């Protein structure tokens, strides 16, 4: 808990920062919804919301107002406590897990150093996995609390799906942990700095060009694909949105919800999407790193530009924050694009893919990674 700082200044800044990151996550949701609607319109050759404000950007504000003014509806036989608690709990795991993802280099002001993430956890990956595992309860609570067959069925389906794909997700991450030898997300990002470099078996191959970054995707291609697919299932999005079947069925565990409570579920779901995108960026695409320049080089450039250490640090952080957000946005767009491209699986197909295809491949990936790493450290060829 020492990460909260020692002096009053640090504590205040850290608290403000935490709130800001939470707000950033929450505020990204309207933008994503707008993007999703405009994007789907673009893909389906129509306009999407374009009337309220420039490019329809204010549409979401209008929607929010509409949500807030809706009737606060509770099913007659439902469990009031669970019904109200579920949407609140939907927000918490997503927010808590998202805050553990580092988004930029630490900012140094005077003697104080601020991490551009909610808090640094030494066992980052395990923490994120553990926290996001709790998201299942919100679905179950919502489904149960609604006292409706459709809700309960949707909740069960969603929970079963999430648990099933958590296995493949976890195993895909094991490969990442093996490659970097750490749980710590920041250390992983540091390890991905610099040009591509394979060493082992007595070789030490360094990419001739500095623009070929030392990213995890080159070490764990299969793991990356598996993690990305599992992330789709984890966040209940197409092509894995069986629980909701929002295109033609009733909407899963939140059938009985409306208004702002519904919106909170949406925020939770988009939060999961963001965590997945953040993890993909961090594990396989260098995190906030910029291909071709290490953080030190950027800092040095900032120093020569401004001649002030604080300004250089701010510059450094800002540049890397931008870099992170570009990668992050690309993955979010892929999420959206896939949703409007692929049709849905049948439920048995979904389970088959999870247990009979992805789990074996993830196991294979883990074993292969471990074997190669062991052999590379033990044997020298030539």
């Amino acid at each position: 808990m020492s990460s909260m700082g020692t002096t009053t200044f640090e504590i205040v800044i850290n608290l403000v920062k935490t709130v800001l990151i939470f707000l950033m996550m929450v505020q990204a949701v309207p933008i994503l919804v707008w993007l999703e609607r405009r994007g789907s319109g673009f893909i389906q050759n129509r306009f999407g919301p374009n009337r309220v404000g420039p490019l329809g950007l204010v549409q979401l504000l209008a929607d929010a107002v509409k949500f807030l003014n809706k009737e606060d509806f509770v099913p007659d036989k439902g469990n009031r406590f669970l019904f109200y608690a579920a949407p609140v709990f939907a927000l918490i795991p997503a927010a808590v897990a998202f805050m553990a993802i580092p988004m930029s280099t630490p900012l140094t002001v005077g003697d104080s150093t601020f991490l551009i993430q909610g808090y640094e956890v030494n066992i980052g990956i395990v923490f994120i996995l553990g926290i996001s595992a709790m998201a299942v309860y919100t679905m179950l609570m919502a489904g149960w609390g609604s006292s409706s067959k459709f809700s309960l069925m949707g909740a069960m389906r969603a929970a079963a799906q999430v648990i099933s794909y958590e296995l493949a997700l976890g195993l895909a991450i094991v490969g990442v942990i093996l490659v970097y030898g750490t749980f710590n997300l920041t250390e992983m990002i540091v390890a991905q700095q610099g040009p591509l470099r394979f060493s082992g078996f007595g070789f030490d191959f360094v990419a001739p060009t500095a623009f070929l970054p030392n990213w995890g995707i080159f070490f764990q291609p299969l793991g990356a694909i598996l993690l990305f697919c599992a992330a789709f299932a984890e966040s209940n999005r197409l092509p894995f949105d069986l629980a909701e079947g929002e295109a033609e069925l009733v909407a899963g565990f939140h059938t009985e919800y409306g208004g702002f409570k519904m919106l909170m579920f949406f925020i939770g779901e988009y939060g999961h999407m963001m965590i997945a995108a953040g993890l993909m960026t961090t594990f396989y695409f260098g995190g906030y790193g910029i291909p071709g320049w290490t953080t030190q080089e950027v800092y040095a450039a900032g120093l020569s530009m401004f001649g002030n250490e604080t300004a250089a640090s701010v510059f450094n952080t800002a540049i890397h924050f931008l870099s992170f957000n570009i990668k992050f946005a690309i993955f979010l767009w892929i999420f959206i694009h896939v949703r409007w491209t692929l049709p849905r699986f049948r439920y048995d197909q979904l389970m088959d893919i999870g247990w009979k295809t992805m789990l074996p491949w993830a196991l294979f990936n883990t074993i292969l990674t471990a074997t190669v790493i062991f052999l590379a450290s033990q044997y020298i060829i030539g």
Partner: protein
Amino acid sequence: MSMDAVLFWFLSIVVIGAGLSVVLMSNPIYSALSLVMTMVGVAALFATLNAYFLAGVQLIVYTGAVMVLFVMVLMLFDLKRELQAFSRGKITGFFKIAGVGVLAGLLVGVITFTTQKTSLIAEGSPLAADIAAQAASGADNTKILSENLFLKNILGFELLGVLLLVIAIGVVALSRSKGGTHARD
């Protein structure tokens, strides 16, 4: 009061309160949700004891898998609030409650009594200094744990793998049989 102490007291109140509600809630769903709460609290307690990895595993295994199973089963059964949540029998009931009370008292007594007499590690020994240093640094001991687990206790680890396989097969067999030996249909 230090931060650690505040955290400990807060967490112990949460854990004990949630634990009590596991036992006392008449609706099993609430019991289960309270148990989830307890387990999150225990995970946080692990973190205060510098066992970060175990805290994560506690979250993944217990709250992420085991308790989800409980909750799902409960919801499938569609159990409502129980009219008679506790077992019958006034005399046995009294004995049980008294027994549990005595047990709690004895346990606490034994703990405070015996560890006051003999401290686990001699005061001022190098080990004690080490402990103080480690406790202060809050160092992560995941590496030590993994070395212990995969070098010293590898056999136990492998056997657990076998156990899990056996359990998986057994559970499938159990839940596929229609009512086991008592099958009526």
